[in-house]
């Protein structure tokens, strides 16, 4: 069992490395202890800079560095896998008082940048049986398994950072990984398109016929006919992009 004084020294060195605040440590080379603070902090900063290049550019390097410092000081990093730490950073930011001290877009932007990592690194799942969407009424509609949708409030993909706040609106977006090329793609969609995708994400093995029937039930005849055309056009677009597939039911 560790003696309290051993635990105490280990805890103090860890605390110093996290915060840079001087601790009462028994050291053989006190002039070199700052290397631990430097090394530890730059690992975390490096990971965050790699994960959030747009956010860092938008708020400036010094502000970003200060934010990472605050995160590392105040948050107990849980994951043993440092490449997953950006998600902890997103979640920490959302619930910290930093939200009020930073631009209103920052929480969403951090999450948006994380989604790219999440999709890129998402565990592989079997895509056996997936065929290109051909509009077969009795086949199941199947979305690309490496897909996230988000309704952005700011147009990170369309405008410069200084214009984001004034352009606040709705910008639905799909982020997905190519099934065979592993590349991450972004696709701006309409609000209607986002609704369709989110509906498909919540339903399993729905056939095209069943989907169109649900659409008909929820709308009047004239609307339904128009919507069905829209949906089929949209599905063909999704298929072309590698987002929508079909599979035998």
């Amino acid at each position, binding site marked *: 069992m560790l003696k309290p*004084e*051993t635990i105490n020294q*280990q805890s103090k060195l860890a605390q110093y490395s996290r915060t840079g605040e001087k601790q009462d*440590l028994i050291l053989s080379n006190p002039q070199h*202890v700052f290397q*631990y603070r430097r090394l530890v902090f730059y690992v975390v900063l490096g990971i965050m800079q790699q994960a959030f290049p747009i956010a860092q550019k938008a708020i400036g390097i010094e502000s970003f560095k200060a934010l990472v410092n605050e995160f590392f000081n105040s948050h*107990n990093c849980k994951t043993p896998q440092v490449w997953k730490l950006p998600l902890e950073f997103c979640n920490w930011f959302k619930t910290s008082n930093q939200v009020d001290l930073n631009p209103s877009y920052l929480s969403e932007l951090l999450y948006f940048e994380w989604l790219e990592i999440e999709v890129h690194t998402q565990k592989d799942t079997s895509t056996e049986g997936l065929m290109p969407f051909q509009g077969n009424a009795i086949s199941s509609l199947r979305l690309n398994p490496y897909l996230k949708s988000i309704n952005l409030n700011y147009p990170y993909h369309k405008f410069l950072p200084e214009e984001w706040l004034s352009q606040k609106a709705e910008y639905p977006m799909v982020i997905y990984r190519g099934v065979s090329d592993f590349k991450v793609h972004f696709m701006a969609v309409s609000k209607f398109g986002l609704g369709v995708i989110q509906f498909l994400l919540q339903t399993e093995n729905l056939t095209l016929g069943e989907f169109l029937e649900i659409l008909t039930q929820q709308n009047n005849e004239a609307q339904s006919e128009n919507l069905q055309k829209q949906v089929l056009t949209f599905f063909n677009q999704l298929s072309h992009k590698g987002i929508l597939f079909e599979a035998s039911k």
Partner: protein
Amino acid sequence: MVKGVGIGFRRDIADEIIGMVNPSPNFIELAPENWIDMGGYWRAKLDEAAEKYPISLHGLSLSIGSPDELDFDFLKKIKAFIKQYDIKIYSEHLSYSKCDNAHLYDLLPIPFTQDAVIHIAERIKVVQDYLEMPLAIENVSYYTAVAAEMKEHEFISEIVNKSNCNLLLDVNNIYVNAFNHGYNTKDFINNLPLEKVSYIHMAGHEKVADDLIIDTHGEAIIDPVYELLKWVYPKLNNSPVLLERDFNFPEINELKRELTQLHKITNQEEVDA
């Protein structure tokens, strides 16, 4: 089978390593933390490399010297990864990287104390039992000792002997520590349980001040470190040697030149100046 001379599998040079010839590495080493749960492009690259080379694991986050509890959820993932890739060598650092329930993502020096010896030896035994394989622990570089009550070689030797684990002999770390803390490299090595060495690391470092070398893994191996390996290697059991290069990657031919040098040493041939 992990034997001969290997190289650290890093993303920046993944394609070069996969395509490496004359010489090609005999094996590759990777940090499981950087690959577990990862799919997509990088998983495909790992699988491509695994088709070509045996893999050894060198962990970063087990935090064997931590006062915190061992993380069995994490160990479970390590065990599954070991099984998936048929891993025969799993090594970790004799340091801690987690404390007060927070990961630090770098290696902090453990106080060289008797209670730490007992604590760590017990934890190594638990890990070895859980993984059903021996753990090799690495002598780490450090820039200041913390609350030390015994010598570093005594600390390492006692842990290895009490836990019956293997020793990963990091030759560069011995050179770095000898410079930073003023001891003789060969005396230090002679005081270690060399019969327990199962694996060797070689790397470069950076002298950042008159009295300090940092173990960066970002430079080429220097001649005195080659010389030290040449001196110690005949005392060891033909242990596999790993070239560590984590940053500041040179042209692949430069890494091949280092691999060739290491091959020559392990084959007891003359090393080029």
